[in-house]
């Protein structure tokens, strides 16, 4: 069978999102938009202590209130189970809701009110009286541990450090951060005929189904999970949270659909956060700037019961060449809700520390920070000895420097000015793993001339609907308006999580296999259908070109594929595809699989009024082949905007008096707004990673946030002489001079 590339390839183009018109007209249906007859509303009651035991839970006043149908708590929620198969069913907060009377963090749910309306449930939730025997708790942001465990090691890191002529020994802190996806976490649970349908704000319908089945004690086929549109997640919606099972149990007990939408405040308490990290970096180099020792000892906080680890050493072992390296880590328990993956988990705080340390080392060496990175570029992944599948960090740095105008940099502190403002310029490298997960897909060619591609993955805003349509269009030659993509439903063939920047790379091979199989089936049908003009032809002599079947290169009257299906009396012809992957991807035994990039940041500083702005960012990405220029660019630019927040604004603060995440709203947890948007110039290098998949695409959802905070704090140092080692950079840090 032949495939014909069209004159204007759809892959790598800038087509609009196929779901765009729905999203801009309010017609895209998100979880909390679902409505059913008899719908009830659930509102959780969060604890108001960070440690202790519930001594009484008085629901009498709340129960007497109008519209209240039930108040669920430890005594009556019914049996919920713990997950026993974490490889298939991942959940970060493993304790089922209301499992005991112990309180381990502020905001832990102690009850939930179900009522006829949201207003009634909200009022009644406030009327539930809970008393606690409070215990001491710890939410200190200062971490200590004597139990460092080695993660990666080569050479003699301590010996090389002590002998080296140029050294750096500094500790970098990134605060607890909260994802604050615009869409509040929500569940709409329907229990009917003994089975659950759960409309969930999830980045992973398949995982959610496994977790829900285990925790609810149901066979998997009794739990269907649906997420058609997700108002973003950034990791906070990767794994289920306790509220999901409160809603499910309420729906089951009451025999009515139940909607539970967390408040913004609850989102800060019991729906995950990026944990605080504290990283001691020791770098040593020769006087001409060859790294000889790199040590990273890092601590991260986690909750009392769960071992979520922020893997800050993810990129350290392979980022730069050094014969001596060691990464060690330890978890420190705090009375906080369980942390979880947040965009670029591990590598993003890790690269803030590593890239900041590289910048500081360059200053000690009196060397250009770009040059320091260039001359410590490794030839292979020195942690494993494996070759990189595709690594172009050097080109990212040199291309970025050129686009930014880095050669005009005067390295002196505060030496550059523009329009009466002091300028600061900073640079950082970045990296993120190339991941792909096992994926199955089905593609149908239908008698109405359309194609339907389905998979139980989901589009969380990254553009998965559109990218899949482009992949199908590329193979079939059909226009996007004849391609329907259906995702976000566990009734579909199992698909990947929308996490780890893995979705695109995961679906590529499965989707293309599936559509090719469907096309081959149509060709076979063309040679078999009784009325077909191609009856008895060898299917191998036929070609599927732009949606029609050609008997040869000079066939002037190709047969539309839908005619063949029609002639055979069928509704559709389908094909299946399957692709490999996972954290134990066999490809990882042969190659070091990562994306790379470089950021150049400019800040403006007005010391007279202590006003700091990020004015300009130039970013160059080496993320393999880009399938959609528009959605890819949007991912990177969006990450840069988030990076401005990470560098300057974002920090979840725990009240030391009561343990509450105290700035639990958009006025006090500050994220970048329109007015904070810098000028951005994003370039994609075009180096398809054909080791990784047949298109050569890697993921782009997270890497843009890696390194950017270090580029910005490097620029702040250049402008002000102040080195920010504890994020975010605060105005009070800058006016201390």
């Amino acid at each position, binding site marked *: 069978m032949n495939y014909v590339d069209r004159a204007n390839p759809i892959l790598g183009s800038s087509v*609009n*999102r196929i779901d*765009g*018109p*729905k*999203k*801009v*007209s*309010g017609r*895209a249906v*998100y979880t*909390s*938009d679902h*409505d*059913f*007859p*008899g*719908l009830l509303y659930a509102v959780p009651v969060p604890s108001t202590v960070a440690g202790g035991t519930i001594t009484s839970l008085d629901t009498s006043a709340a129960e007497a209130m*109008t*519209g209240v149908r039930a108040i669920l708590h430890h005594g009556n929620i019914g049996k919920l189970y713990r997950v026993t198969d974490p490889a298939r069913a991942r959940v970060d907060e493993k304790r089922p809701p209301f499992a005991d009377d112990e309180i381990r963090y502020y905001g832990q749910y102690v009850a939930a009110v179900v009522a*006829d*309306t*949201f207003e*009634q449930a*909200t*009022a009644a939730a406030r009327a539930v009286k809970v008393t606690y025997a409070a215990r001491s708790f710890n939410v200190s942001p200062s971490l200590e541990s004597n139990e460092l465990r080695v993660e990666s090691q080569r050479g003699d890191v301590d010996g090389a450090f002590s002998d080296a002529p140029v050294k750096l020994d500094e500790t970098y802190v990134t605060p607890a951060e909260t994802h*604050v*996806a*615009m*869409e*509040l976490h929500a569940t709409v649970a329907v229990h*009917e005929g003994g089975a659950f349908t759960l409309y969930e704000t999830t980045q992973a319908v398949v995982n959610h189904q496994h977790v829900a089945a285990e925790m609810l004690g149901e066979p998997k086929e009794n739990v269907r999970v649906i997420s058609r*549109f997700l*108002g*973003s997640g950034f990791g906070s919606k990767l794994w289920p949270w306790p509220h999901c099972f409160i809603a499910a149990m309420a729906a089951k007990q009451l025999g*009515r*659909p139940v909607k539970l*939408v967390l*408040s*913004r405040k609850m989102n800060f308490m019991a729906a995950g956060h990026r944990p605080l990290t504290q990283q001691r970096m020791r770098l040593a180099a020769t006087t001409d700037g060859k790294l000889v020792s790199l040590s990273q000892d890092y601590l991260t906080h986690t909750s009392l019961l769960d071992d979520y680890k922020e893997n800050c050493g993810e990129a350290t072992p392979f980022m730069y060449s050094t014969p001596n390296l060691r990464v060690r880590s330890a978890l420190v328990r705090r009375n906080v809700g369980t942390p979880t993956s947040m965009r670029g988990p591990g590598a993003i705080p890790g690269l803030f520390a590593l890239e900041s340390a590289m910048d500081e080392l360059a200053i000690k060496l009196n060397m250009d920070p770009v040059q320091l990175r260039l001359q410590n570029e490794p030839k292979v992944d020195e942690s494993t000895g494996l070759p990189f599948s595709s690594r172009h960090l050097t080109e990212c740095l040199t291309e970025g420097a050129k686009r930014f105008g880095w050669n005009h940099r005067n390295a002196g502190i505060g030496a550059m000015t523009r329009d009466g403002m002091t300028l600061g310029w900073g640079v950082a490298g970045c990296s993120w793993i190339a991941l792909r997960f096992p994926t199955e897909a089905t593609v149908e060619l239908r008698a109405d001339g359309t194609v339907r591609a389905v998979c139980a993955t989901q589009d969380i*805003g*990254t553009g998965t609907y559109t990218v899949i349509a482009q992949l199908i269009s590329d193979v079939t030659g059909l226009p996007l308006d004849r391609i329907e993509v259906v995702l976000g439903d566990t009734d579909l063939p199992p698909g990947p999580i929308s996490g780890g920047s893995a979705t695109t790379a995961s679906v590529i091979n499965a989707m293309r296999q599936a559509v090719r199989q469907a096309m081959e089936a149509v060709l076979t049908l063309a040679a078999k259908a009784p009325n077909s003009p191609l009856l008895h032809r060898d299917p191998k002599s036929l070609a599927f070109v732009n949606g029609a079947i050609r008997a040869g290169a000079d066939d002037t009257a190709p047969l539309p594929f839908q005619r063949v299906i029609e002639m055979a009396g069928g509704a559709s012809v389908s094909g299946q595809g399957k692709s490999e992957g996972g954290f134990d991807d066999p490809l990882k035994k042969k190659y070091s699989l990562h994306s790379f990039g470089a950021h150049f940041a400019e800040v403006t500083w007005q010391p007279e009024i202590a006003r700091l702005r990020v004015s300009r960012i130039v970013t160059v990405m080496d993320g393999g082949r880009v399938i959609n220029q*528009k*959605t890819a*660019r*949007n991912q990177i*630019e*969006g990450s840069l*905007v*988030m990076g401005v927040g990470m560098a300057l604004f974002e920090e979840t603060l725990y009240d030391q008096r009561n343990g509450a995440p105290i700035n639990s*709203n*958009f*006025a006090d947890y500050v*994220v*970048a*707004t*329109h*007015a904070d*948007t810098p000028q*951005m110039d994003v370039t994609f290098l075009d180096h398809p990673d054909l080791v990784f998949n047949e298109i050569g695409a890697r993921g782009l959802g997270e890497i843009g946030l890696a390194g950017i905070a270090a580029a910005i704090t490097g620029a702040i140092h250049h402008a002000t002489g102040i080195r920010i080692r504890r994020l975010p950079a605060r105005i009070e840090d800058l006016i201390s001079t």
Partner: protein
Amino acid sequence: MNAPARTTLTPDFYVTVGIKVNGQLHTLSIDPRTSLLDALREQLHLTGTKKGCDHGQCGACTVHVNGRRINSCLALAAVHDGDEVTTIEGIGQPDHLHPLQAAFVEHDGFQCGYCTSGQIMSAVALLQEPCGPRDDDVRELMSGNICRCGAYKNIVAAIQQVRQNRRT
């Protein structure tokens, strides 16, 4: 599913309000605690308007009341008796988009789409407001609408394209 009616409030808890939404008059008997946002979403099932904070801090719930943009989560429905409300559903449909909606698609002025209704409602209002010509002017007037995906650059480009077309 045979379920009882949604509202089982005692009659003395009801407030009757008449609100014209997207040109159509709705007479609602509502709990006086109901925000305009919740009335639109939970009673009128106009779910294009989103809840992102319920505190007037994020802008996802932006609608027009008598032609001006407001955060509908900060407004009690009961005080809008007789008012005219426009929601995203009243601005355009998928096959008949308002120029701003079309510009948002063209410029990819969103990712997840959750803040998008609010961004567009703010932007439609901005077209009539005294806003300077520069991108920075638009950024200032749009800063009440948070986009956590960070599609700000594209949102401003979409707004500026429509403003440009209106001037010429």
